[in-house]
């Protein structure tokens, strides 16, 4: 083996194993860079949607590529470090990518996204729920594959009032991260709008790492009239711990939670849980009413030999769909032309659901949700529900709150 060959192999290995699918294409391949966390705690949120994105890329390549060109992708590990995310992003931008995909979180995705945005390259976060991953935050070339956290809160509030007939709610806010605060802000807004002023009978906060929420439970128990529902905006493990403690204390009111609490992996914490509702993306458990989800699961399975561990994965699949569709429409991978097509999307029927963008908003605010509830120790699909209240800019950026 000569030195040159060795260098090449090392270089390929260093880039995380670039598939050489584009080698036979007549034209230069289209390039997608993934600046995501393959290690560290964020990797558990990044890897599932990333794998779904790869499944979509492989599907496109197998059916002849995009504009007749194969898609080539490279992956750089940000190791769940913001500084490294910036470095990996900048490096990928300098090697020339047509799309830069970044982590599932604004704080960790933005450093890489900023590099792409300032170079005029389209950049999309796998599943950041913060609208700052867009025009007003990172810049005009930045998108998120997810819905804004506010719309989760709005959807479950509207569902609770309109479909479940609940009248009063108690809000339990985990103040550890901004996602929870945005979610609760959306919930409060929509609940008051649909159930009337005074329909939120109490509020309290906790921290995700609190070993006990006994004091918060005491406050709920001391209410004169028990609320119809409890809204928890949190994530695991703290959210699961809070639900366990609420149920153990005999508080059996329906719990309306945020999307981050979806999927079965935490249900061991609360055996026999009932009346727990979330707005979800899709069901991993074979009961999703939409046939396209079965197709997505099949594609994922075929590519990776196992199903996705998280229902957030479908957002990665649709991220590639939404960008590739714009490239086809624009008949070029040129960022500005693709951008103008994407900005014109109104209710485009992609796998994860109807998708709209505008030149002001690069995140979903009323994509239909799959409402799910816990029964017999598993999440079950209930029905598709689309929120009618959409958050305005003040609510999306929590101005004056």
């Amino acid at each position, binding site marked *: 083996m000569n030195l040159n060959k060795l260098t090449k192999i090392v270089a390929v290995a260093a880039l995380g194993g670039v598939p050489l699918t584009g080698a036979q294409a007549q034209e230069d391949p289209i390039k997608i860079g993934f600046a995501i966390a393959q290690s560290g705690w964020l990797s558990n949120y990044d890897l599932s949607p990333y794998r779904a994105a790869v499944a979509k890329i492989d599907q496109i390549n197998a059916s002849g590529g995009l504009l007749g060109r194969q898609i080539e992708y490279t992956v750089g590990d940000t190791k769940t470090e913001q500084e490294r995310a910036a470095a990996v992003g900048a490096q990928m931008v300098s090697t020339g990518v047509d799309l830069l995909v970044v982590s599932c979180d604004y704080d960790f995705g933005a450093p890489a996204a900023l590099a792409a945005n300032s170079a005029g390259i389209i950049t999309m976060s796998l599943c950041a729920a913060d609208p700052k991953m867009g025009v007003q935050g990172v810049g005009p070339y930045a998108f998120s594959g997810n819905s804004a956290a506010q719309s989760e809160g709005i959807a479950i509030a509207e569902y609770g009032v309109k479909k479940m007939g609940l009248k009063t709610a108690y809000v339990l806010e985990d103040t550890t991260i901004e996602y929870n605060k945005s979610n609760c802000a959306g919930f409060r807004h929509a609940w008051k709008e649909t159930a009337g002023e005074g329909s939120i009978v109490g509020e309290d906060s*906790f921290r995700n790492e*609190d070993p006990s929420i006994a004091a918060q439970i005491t406050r709920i*128990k001391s209410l004169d009239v028990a609320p119809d529902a409890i809204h928890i905006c949190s994530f*695991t493990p703290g959210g*699961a*711990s809070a639900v*366990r*403690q609420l149920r153990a*204390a005999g508080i059996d009111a329906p719990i309306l939670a945020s999307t981050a609490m979806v999927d079965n992996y935490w249900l061991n914490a609360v055996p026999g849980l009932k009346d727990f509702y979330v707005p979800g993306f899709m069901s991993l458990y074979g009961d999703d009413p939409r046939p396209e989800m079965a197709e997505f699961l099949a594609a994922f399975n075929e590519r990776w030999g196992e199903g996705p561990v998280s229902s957030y994965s479908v957002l990665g699949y649709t991220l590639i769909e939404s960008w590739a569709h714009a490239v086809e429409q624009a008949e070029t991978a040129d960022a500005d032309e693709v951008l103008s097509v994407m900005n014109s999307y109104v209710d485009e029927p992609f796998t994860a659901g109807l998708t709209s963008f505008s030149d002001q908003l690069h995140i979903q605010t009323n994509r239909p949700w799959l409402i799910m509830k816990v029964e017999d120790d598993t999440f079950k699909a209930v029905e598709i529900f689309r929120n009618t209240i959409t958050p305005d800019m003040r609510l999306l950026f929590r101005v004056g709150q």
Partner: protein
Amino acid sequence: MQNLIQIIVDAVALGSLYALVSLSIGLVFGVMRLINFAQADYITIGAYALVVPTASVSPALLLGALPFAFMAGGVVVVVVVLALLTERLAFRPMRGSDPATLLVSSFAVSYFLQHLVMLIHSGRPKSVGIGNSLSAAVEFWGIRVPGTQLLTMGVALVMLVAMVFFLKKTPMGIQMRAAAENFQMARLMGVKANRVIATAFAISGIMAAAVSLLLVVQTGTLDIRMGLMPVIFAFFATVIGGMGSLPGAALGGFIVGFVTVGLQAFLPPDLRAFRDAFVFMLVIGFLLFRPQGLIVTSAARERV
């Protein structure tokens, strides 16, 4: 009135948990002048020992599948062995170093252990349903006491009594107190340093195992950072109670528990999110105005 009693019960339960952790920190500090932040990872690893070590998000139970006595015993063995290993491999070579150096080395051990858990179990939180029957609430005259709170208070009480008995009545306990008072002099009098320090680590391991189990029964979840907050609050507790003083550590644990629950219960809603900041302010206040803490040991007095 009932509400107030309820809040006091909540505070005692949380204080008991913090007292268990602060006692184990205080014990090791007493004999070695080491503030052992790896205590957080003893707790975490004890909890993770309940499940099979895989990256799976819903792993099968390992120690958690055993009957309660074996499960508790197994977790204690795992954590005690871990505590002794860290003492032997990481802290013994550093013995006699500056307390600041020891502190940094404990951060290194903690960081290493946390990443080891992440490597084996992945960073994704997991859930484990043990002791579900214990978590149900019991009502006494309208006061609701969750089973886990009763358990926490019971375990803390038993451990406190056992610790007092151990320190006052057993030869090893007396040697440990002597070593905490004046390590050099104790050694000159024939106290074996290695054995005393290893025993302190082993006891801190037993307490960490108890805290692991209590946390898992209470929260039903596993997370690589689950031990961190209890240890930070327990560290505050030792500062408030007086570094190196065991009664001070226990007292500090209860004070931190009362202050945390009290702030949560009585602060106006807008300020509740900053509850922990008020606890931190209390600690800063102690550091500024009473750095020796509430209960001062003679060993600490010498150093001031």
